[in-house]
């Protein structure tokens, strides 16, 4: 019983944790990536791209993000020019990256809508907050080393699941202050997420964007970016294997209950005969023995549920990586129902033969000592 409940519970909890982690790392289900040759991404071209994406994606219930990782510098104003300051990976974003990936804001807020804001707004992850300072820290950011830095301020600390310092900044702001961020060959990655649309519908959204932006469709190869579906398929396969083992364990438990039940009937035979002698029918004796087995089954099922509940509510929260900012897992009550059903089923299967044996005890033995 315990094996069934724990496997079911572990399956549900692990699924939630893995899916949340995957959604944080790569993207929510369903997210597509498409690298589009936008041409030189100027401030004006970016506005045009954003307007099309708002109309074609956001208005249809989806979310998008233009993402470009650049090797630049971030630091305090007095340090930004020093030779010893290491390069930083700066992720420039337009749209809502937090709509595409699960990136919970731990402190502060997300970047303002796509517009030029001075000083520029920055998001850092937990490791970045440790390196650069927390909320409100004034810094300077230099997305490209051949252009001077500009002033920025940390407006939010997010959990991106990464343990190395990461800085996120607005692509629109960067283009406003330093128009030549990208060379002609550079193009940000476009991520499109829709929570309910099938893959074919998302392809349709991307086709519309290509048309509106006059992009050559032969140069765009959209592909599914998130791995949630693959992860779930792997988890299902693993869970099925474990359930197979659990079913075997359950079958062994049924045989065990059958043997214990038969031994119990032998031990209680005098009592059962007395009950028959004073008027209990065979059906009543059958029910009495079966009820005993089911009671034991339900009790063992409840113990299994209690252990699983304690594991989920008291143990697992302490095992979660704080960098992932995962919510404490909810107890899958379906596991409790499945476990209790398995316990009752096993008790009925294991108790039926002893109950039948008990109902067939010769009542004439009442007069023999």
């Amino acid at each position, binding site marked *: 019983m315990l094996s069934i409940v724990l496997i079911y519970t572990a399956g549900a909890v692990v699924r939630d944790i893995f899916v949340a982690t995957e959604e944080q790392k790569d993207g929510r289900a369903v997210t597509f990536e498409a690298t589009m040759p936008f041409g030189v991404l100027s401030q004006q071209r970016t506005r045009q791209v954003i307007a099309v994406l708002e109309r074609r994606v956001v208005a249809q219930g989806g979310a998008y993000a233009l993402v470009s990782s650049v090797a630049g510098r971030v630091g305090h104003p007095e340090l930004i020019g020093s030779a010893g300051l290491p390069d930083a990976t700066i992720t420039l974003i337009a749209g809502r990256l937090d709509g595409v990936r699960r990136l919970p804001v731990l402190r502060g807020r997300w970047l303002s809508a796509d517009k030029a804001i001075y000083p520029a707004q920055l998001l850092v992850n937990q490791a970045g907050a440790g390196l650069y300072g927390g909320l409100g820290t004034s810094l300077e950011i230099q997305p490209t080393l051949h252009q001077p830095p500009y002033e920025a301020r940390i407006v939010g600390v997010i959990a991106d699941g990464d343990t190395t310092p990461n800085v996120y900044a607005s692509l629109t702001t960067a283009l406003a202050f330093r128009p030549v961020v990208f060379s002609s060959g550079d193009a940000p990655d476009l991520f499109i997420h829709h929570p309910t649309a099938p893959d074919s519908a998302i392809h349709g959204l991307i086709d519309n964007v290509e048309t509106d932006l006059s992009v050559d469709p032969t140069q765009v190869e959209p592909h599914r970016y998130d791995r949630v579906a693959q992860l779930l398929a792997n988890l299902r396969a693993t869970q099925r294997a474990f359930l197979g083992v659990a079913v075997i364990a359950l079958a062994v438990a049924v045989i065990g209950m059958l043997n214990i039940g038969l031994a119990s009937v032998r031990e209680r035979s*005098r*009592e059962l005969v*007395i*009950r*028959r*002698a*004073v*008027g*209990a*029918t*065979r*059906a*009543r004796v059958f029910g009495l023995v079966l009820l005993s087995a089911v009671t034991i089954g339900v009790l063992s099922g409840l113990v299994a549920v209690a252990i699983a509940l304690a594991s989920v509510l008291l143990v697992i929260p302490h095992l979660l990586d704080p960098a992932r900012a995962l919510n404490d897992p909810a107890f899958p009550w379906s596991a409790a129902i499945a476990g209790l059903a398995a316990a009752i089923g096993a008790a009925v299967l294991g108790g039926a033969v002893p109950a039948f044996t008990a109902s067939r005890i*010769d*009542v*004439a033995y*009442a*007069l*023999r*000592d």
Partner: protein
Amino acid sequence: MTAISGEGLRKDVVLPSGDRLELLRGASLVVEEGEAVAIAGRSGSGKTTLLAVLGLLTSHEAGRLRVKDGDVDGLSDRKRSRLRNEQIGFVFQSYSLIPHLTAAENVALPLLQGQSLRRVEAKRRVGGAMELVGISHRAHSRPRQLSGGEQQRTAIARALVRSPIVVLADEPTGALDTATAEHVLDALVQAAQHDGTALVLVTHDPVVAARADRTLVLEDGLLHAGRDLASV
């Protein structure tokens, strides 16, 4: 009115060797309401088997058995169980109390098997039956805390709690010392008389048999009246 009657009862048993032994070869008896009948006989004569047949604990091969003027031959197990519950009380030599139940719970056992009674009524009946045999002060004791005499009184209360038409007692004092046996027998006979219940006592003890209104001797599978008990 007849409480229980058997006419030409035949019963075979199969021995471990596979041979069949005719224990009852046409035994007949009639027991009236309120009457006490002792059945005596040698060991192995079939007394207990006769009691099992009369108590619907086993079926007979031939003959006619009637309980309270109703023919019981061919009844289903459910109906036989119901008759046992409502019309027949048993007192066994070894008391046959359920060890994990209290004396009161043992007495209440027949009330739980058949047609259910209201809790208050069941409690009243259990109290009344225990009072009748003088065991009410041990109501909450478990069998292992009771003496042999108290256990048998509890068993008698259990046999009477449903106010049956007949109580079948198999060597009811066989496991007791003489003094205790006498008290228990008094309790059994008086309680049966109090309720107008017929009593069938299987015994090989002439003293016990003497407490009955009449004695039948089981010999060669038949019941005989007026036999000398000394020869049994």
